């Protein structure tokens, strides 16, 4: 246990290429040059999105007289149009409501499930875990048509509640596996001590296991929030009326009108719709990285 930990910290500090023959020029050519190309390409669409949202239409559609990579007279017209002439604030609110609702629902369900599978050990608990993992491999593209009929049967069609109930189908498997990993890392002895002291199982979960699993809960929470904010196909299939649409669907179906696309407004909408998750992301980068890699390794 301690050996493994020591080893993994070693790995971080020593990489194979730090030996003497490694010259500076070679390093620039082999590492920095390709790396900056990658960063440039990965970031360019966002730069382009951002710069388009603040460009006046005249500059937007005239590359010969204006340098397309810069704005000479930035404008807030597109964002103003979005906020005051369209239902964008409503879409944002709906998306936020759906994302928060489904995140809490999945966190609740998957914490209990992970605790039962990992800590209450019963016969067949590995199979339940495997079953939940397999659920993660069922892609939404296969499910959305029958789910649409189920949603209609339940009378939830065109309601954000439908999305809150459906999103856990891909959030619960992910969160459960993440939390199983976290619960595994909490020493079992702590719970045994509490049991000896006469605590009930629920007290143990509430007072001991959950407080220790807070980093895992945060990881699972922000991940669920991001995934539900970004979800598209269910929101497209189950929501009909303009006011109940989520941001990604609404931009594509309500803002793209006619033959002449209003690129300024479209890009401003995309920028604003990306901001909440980007902000969230910048606050919790490490949690994202650890949960992404943790879920893959499990």
């Amino acid at each position, binding site marked *: 246990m301690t050996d493994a930990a020591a080893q993994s910290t070693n790995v971080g500090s020593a990489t194979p290429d730090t030996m003497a023959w490694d010259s500076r020029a070679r390093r620039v050519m082999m590492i920095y040059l390709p*790396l900056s190309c990658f960063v440039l390409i990965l970031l360019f669409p966002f730069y382009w999105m951002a710069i388009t949202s603040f460009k006046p239409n005249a500059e937007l559609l005239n590359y010969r007289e204006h340098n397309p990579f810069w704005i000479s007279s930035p404008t807030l017209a597109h964002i103003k149009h979005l906020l005051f002439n369209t239902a964008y604030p409503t879409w944002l609110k709906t998306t936020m409501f759906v994302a928060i609702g489904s995140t809490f629902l999945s966190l609740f369900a998957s914490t209990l499930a992970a605790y039962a599978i990992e800590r209450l050990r019963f016969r067949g608990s590995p199979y339940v875990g495997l079953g939940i993992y397999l659920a993660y491999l*069922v892609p939404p593209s296969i*499910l959305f048509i029958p789910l649409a009929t189920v949603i209609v049967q339940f009378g939830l069609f065109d309601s954000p509640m439908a999305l809150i109930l459906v999103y856990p189908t891909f959030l619960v498997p992910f969160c459960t596996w993440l939390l199983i990993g976290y619960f595994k890392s909490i020493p079992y002895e702590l719970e045994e001590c509490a049991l000896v002291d006469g605590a009930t199982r629920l007290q143990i979960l509430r007072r001991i296991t959950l407080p220790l699993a807070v980093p895992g809960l945060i990881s699972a929470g922000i991940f669920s929030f991001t995934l539900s904010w970004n979800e598209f196909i269910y929101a497209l299939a189950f929501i009909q009326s303009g006011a109940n649409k989520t941001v990604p669907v609404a931009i594509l179906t309500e803002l793209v009108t006619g033959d002449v696309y209003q690129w300024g407004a479209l890009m401003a909408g995309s920028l604003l719709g990306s901001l909440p998750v980007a902000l969230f992301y910048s606050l919790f980068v490490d949690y994202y990285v650890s949960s992404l890699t943790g879920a893959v390794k499990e």
Partner: protein
Amino acid sequence: MSVTTLPSRGIALRQPGWVARLFDYKPFLIVMCLTPAIGLLTVFLTYPLGLGVWLAFTDTTIGQRGIYIGLENFQYLWTDPLWWGAVFYSIFYTGIATFGKFALGFWLALLLNNHFPLKSLLRAIVLLPWIVPTVLSALAFWWIYDPQFSIISYLLVDVLHIRTTYIDFLGTPWPARFSLIVANIWRGIPFVAISLLAGLQTISPSLYEAAMLDGASAWQRFRYITFPMMLPILAIVMTFSIIFTFTDFQLVYAITRGGPVNSTHLLATLAFQRGIAGGELGEGAAIAVSMVPFLVFATLFSYFGLARRKWQQGEAND
């Protein structure tokens, strides 16, 4: 030591309510804990999955219950050139995009595994395309691929003078197909790179030291140490990647909606077009079900093709 505290605690715990006692009864507690998760997954995942297979054998349309018609939907699809086109493009899209994602993602992971200043910041930036809603970055690509105001065309024609005409990215079948693949690769690189980076960091540096003492070249170190050690994690990441690329919907729906002349339909977008937009639920479900054999095959192939080796952590359970 704790003698003084024991009596009072004992009294407090001797009469727990029947609710508390019920919740301390292990089988009951297990059932209670599993109910929310299993319930949600059964109602909204397992049941629809079965229902989808049933729908594929009926002629259900929106607002009308269908009757069992056997294999008719599948027979129709078999003779439908659009379905064959979607099958072809789904396989082509998955193949090229997966190859691109893994080649570039692996390279990026190897680059990020080096030491340089601002490493964690860079790692954060790299993951950004994966965090942002796909549809929204797809819109940015749509704008980048605009026939008149494409920034790529502008660079090639007016700045670099490599071409004389603007590229019609999305107006003709083959350029449109490749444009979508490029967008998919762009979106997939971060996930692959960050997952593989985590795998790279578990490889012990002593292996490289030993190889270097033996005079192994950089290529040999990659070929005989990095690659074999990475195979298990590659298998898992690739399985995920293939499943979610093959069933991709958002990118294609946002950028081309299957056009021009239905040349960029994936099975998922075709299923949406027939099933939800066209109202032919039975036929849409049949298209969705027709994805399953491909998925099973791709999963088995990538999993068993790559994961022949045992887990690098060893066979002992953790």
